[in-house]
């Protein structure tokens, strides 16, 4: 997957990460949104005794978008860790947030609800994996 040209227009800077470097830390506060320009990123959730990988993202995918779209707070809901060397584009968060905020209330509700469901579902999966240990 290549990076969408419209997404490229939002990039304000680039960041490089080496293999296994932490990009986003679960529980921390932040609303930076990144797009993967090169490499792969694993999304992980902490469970007792380790980290559970819930998604592997590649070029063109976003990292950190959930914190922005949540209605409640901007706490990071999962870890994002480099899987090999990674180059990320940092998106213009002011512009992105402005555009997001200017969407109709129902659209925002719809999408933030989706994010909430992801978090609940992820938590459920994590709980079940823990329970089975």
């Amino acid at each position: 997957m290549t990076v969408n040209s419209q997404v490229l227009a939002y990039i304000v800077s680039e960041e490089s990460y080496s293999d296994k470097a932490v990009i986003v830390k679960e529980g921390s506060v932040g609303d930076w949104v990144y797009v993967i320009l090169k490499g792969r990123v694993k999304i992980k959730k902490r469970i007792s005794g380790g980290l559970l990988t819930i998604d592997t993202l590649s070029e063109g995918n976003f990292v950190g978008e959930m914190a922005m779209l949540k209605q409640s707070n901007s706490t990071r809901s999962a870890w994002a860790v480099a899987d090999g060397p990674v180059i990320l584009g940092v998106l213009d968060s002011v512009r992105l947030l402005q555009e997001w905020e200017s969407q109709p209330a129902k659209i925002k509700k719809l999408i933030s609800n989706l994010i909430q469901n992801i978090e609940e579902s992820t938590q459920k999966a994590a709980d079940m994996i823990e329970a089975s240990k």
Partner: protein
Amino acid sequence: MTKTKGKIPPVVTLNYSNGDLIIKEGDYGISIYEIISGKVGIFVQSGGTETSVAVLGPGMIVGEMAFIAGNTSTRSASARALEDCCLEVWHPAMLLNAYQKMPEVLRLIAGQALKLIVRMNKMVVELSLKQGQTMNRQTQELSDQWTKERKFFRKMVSLECVFRPVNSPKNLKFLGQIKDISKGGLQMTVKTSGLLNCTLASGDELFISTYFTSNQKVNMTAKITRLQKGKTGGTVSLGMVFTHMDPNDRKRLGFFLMP
């Protein structure tokens, strides 16, 4: 349909009883629901069993996944009332325009979130199946109670209608008022004084015609299944199920009932 073309359908609230199916996995459906009161369970089917992936409460949205997927895919999960619920239905037409105007980047982000939720739901289902009984009824065998038909959406109306018993002379005409109507039948009240010497009984079939919009006449044949004295004296309330309707009239009814 020309009358409603371009017009945004109104927001409608629906009531569901405990156990009613609101959305069925695999169906094509386009409505989005917001929970006003009550709890709704989200279930995913897998090999004859159904797994609960989420329980949603007031303020939360049901049915948004098909919308974000562009209304081209079928419902990816079922939604069922876990208690008596009130839901507000949003017709996607009112959101589609706004969604299409949204910056591409936001749509791509929503698309990615959609893929992730589908993945996570799948993971929950697989885990529940693996863990079987130990996860206290996380996964249920599909029983009759859980696969029962969706309750037909019943639209509350106040429609004047004319009717006559099926085997009565064609010039006979009685007046009634349809109180609610669904895909399966209707309920109407009739002034007993207007019935003259005609008596109605359970099992009788009636020809009924009414207008859904000022120029749209609809004919139906329905059988009386329940006959009750009205709350106010001098009226009788008829519970009826449809026995015949022409395809065109059925289509009109379908559009009329669309939330």
